[in-house]
């Protein structure tokens, strides 16, 4: 199985190649371009599935780039090559990321009407950046992929070439490039101390000799990743960007934020030593999560612009993941059933968040396509003209606010239950946030779909867009009815991979 052997490299190489080829394919024709993009994304998805099926049992794929035998990192015990790692957690993250990118890519073949070749080359670059970021086992490659991600997404945010979208892209670019430069500073400090860039090699040594420099370096790296994932108080770019970027791009950007969360916890679980410091750091991150939920929800309630409101809701949803996994980190021993449960709830919520919010942004894109306007505040009473769209939109809203029997419920149940065990107060605030989320989405649904019938003419929703939206809804219902299956197959191996840092380090070195 040589495809499986090279799977981690192919996951990055295929979208990268497709990105540059799509500029030339545009000369053949628009149809050929769309077919090429969908084909490339499908191929990537197939490889992601292969990788996921292979590592689900707890195996680990290590791929060192440029070696004659890619499976072996170092023959001398001194890792010099760039390493990609696919274990149960990173394969799950890459699978979620590529799936959302595939669905958003199919959606945008109809949604984007002009300048398709520019859109797709940036879109595929963004996909390659996400795949690379979730598989990287090396600090410097992490920096390169983060920059790739932010450059391509800044291009996509400004895609509609309005004044405000340029403003959003500029803000995003300034904030994220400063964050990433600080990350590079932290990586430099770690390199100066240990002489390695490999995450596993640094972790194996930092556990013994954690000092001031490691603390500063880790703080710099975590700050940049928290900025990428959009946690309070570094969330300020998020509503701006989500308000102005094209709808399919927002769905993918959101997933890239979740990849940032994944990377943060991978590094923290591996490098942070000792009960004392991991308790402090875990509590701080749980606190950041709690503040994110509160600020995100209260600001979302006040918004007039719908997509800005969704941006704040996304801040709050990221807060739930940070809260759950931060709490698990602060309770250093994973012997407790509840801390493992919190961890699994957080990882499960990464999947659900990507599905639910990704769906909602695509559905908002569909609404603006159907009503032929970008200004969503003009749209009222669309349920009279597009009843099918309003029903699936309602299902998505219920799922994101955690109503049973849809997918958001199961992960929130796990989070609330285990939080209650640690501190009832935490779970009360989190629960109130979830209720406020429902209140927000009542407002969203009422303002778009209810009221007197929509005045303007309505376009028919293309079959391709409807297909993508139905895929999402079907997944939500399926996960909602069989949450145990997803937890057993995907989440539990992932949580095991996250907590067993010793076997990760041993497997790479």
């Amino acid at each position, binding site marked *: 199985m040589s495809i499986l052997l090279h799977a981690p490299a192919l996951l990055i190489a295929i979208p990268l190649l497709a990105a540059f080829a799509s500029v030339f394919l545009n000369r053949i024709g628009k149809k050929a371009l769309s077919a090429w993009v969908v084909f490339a994304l499908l191929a990537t998805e197939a490889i992601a599935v292969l990788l996921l099926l292979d590592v689900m049992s707890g195996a680990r794929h290590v791929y060192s780039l440029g070696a004659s035998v890619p499976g072996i990192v170092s023959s001398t015990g001194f890792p010099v090559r760039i390493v990609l790692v696919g274990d149960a957690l990173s394969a799950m993250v890459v699978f979620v990321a590529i799936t959302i990118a595939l669905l958003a890519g199919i959606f945008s073949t109809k949604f984007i009407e002009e300048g398709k070749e520019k859109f797709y080359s940036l879109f595929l670059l963004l996909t390659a950046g996400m795949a690379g970021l979730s598989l990287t086992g090396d600090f410097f490659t992490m920096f390169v992929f983060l920059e790739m991600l932010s450059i391509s997404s800044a291009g996509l945010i400004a895609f509609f070439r309005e004044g*405000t979208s*340029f403003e959003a892209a500029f803000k995003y670019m300034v904030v994220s490039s*400063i964050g990433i*430069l600080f990350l590079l500073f932290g990586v430099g400090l770690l390199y100066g101390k240990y002489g390695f860039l490999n995450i596993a090699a640094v972790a194996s040594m930092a556990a013994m000799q954690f000092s001031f420099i490691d603390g500063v370096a880790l703080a710099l790296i975590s700050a940049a990743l928290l900025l990428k994932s959009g946690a309070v108080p570094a969330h300020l770019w998020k509503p701006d960007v989500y308000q102005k970027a094209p709808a399919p791009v927002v769905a993918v950007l959101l997933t890239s934020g979740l990849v940032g969360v994944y990377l943060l916890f991978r590094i923290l679980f591996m490098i942070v030593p000792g009960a004392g410091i991991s308790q402090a750091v875990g509590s701080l991150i749980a606190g950041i999560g709690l503040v994110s939920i509160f600020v995100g929800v209260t600001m979302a309630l006040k918004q007039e612009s719908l997509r800005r409101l969704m941006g704040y809701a996304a801040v709050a949803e990221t807060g739930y993941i940070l809260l759950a996994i931060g709490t698990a980190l602060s309770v250093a021993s994973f012997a407790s059933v509840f801390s493992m449960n919190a961890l699994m709830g957080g990882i499960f919520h990464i999947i659900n968040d990507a599905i639910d919010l990704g769906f909602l942004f695509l559905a908002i894109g569909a609404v603006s396509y159907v009503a032929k306007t970008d200004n969503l505040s003009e749209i009222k009473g669309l349920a009279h003209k597009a009843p099918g769209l309003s029903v699936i939109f309602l299902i998505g809203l219920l799922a994101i606010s955690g109503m049973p029997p849809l997918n958001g419920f199961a992960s929130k149940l796990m989070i609330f239950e285990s939080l209650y065990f640690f501190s009832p107060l935490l779970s009360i605030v989190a629960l109130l946030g979830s209720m406020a989320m429902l209140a927000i989405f009542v407002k969203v649904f009422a303002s778009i779909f209810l009221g007197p019938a929509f005045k303007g003419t309505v376009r028919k929703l293309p079959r391709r867009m409807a297909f993508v939206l139905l895929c999402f809804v079907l997944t939500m219902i399926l996960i909602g009815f069989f949450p145990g299956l997803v937890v057993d197959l995907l989440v539990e191996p992932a949580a095991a991979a996250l907590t067993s840092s010793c076997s990760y380090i041993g497997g790479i070195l």
Partner: protein
Amino acid sequence: MISLPFIAVVVLIAFGLATVLFRKNMIKIVMGVSVIGSGVNLLLVSLGYRESAIAPIFTSAETTLMVLPTPQALTLTSIVISMAVTALMLALAVQIYRHYGSLSTEKRRLKE
């Protein structure tokens, strides 16, 4: 132990950060970001420096102390990336100026 290059790194990053924090002109903000980038690059290069060592080229090299090659490769990559970032940010600033006729960050449309 702390030598001149590291002091220069701190000074460069502080200047860059101060520019980004206190200047309201977008072009100046872009300058500040690239000054921070230079500071970080200087850190990487000076981490790999060894006193009275030779360039890390292995062909017919004597067995003397060599400068570390990895940080230089990292710095080259990061210089290329920061060029792309600077170009992109300047392009965005030009477009914002064309739309609004102002480069001030206080004239913003997206807020609250």
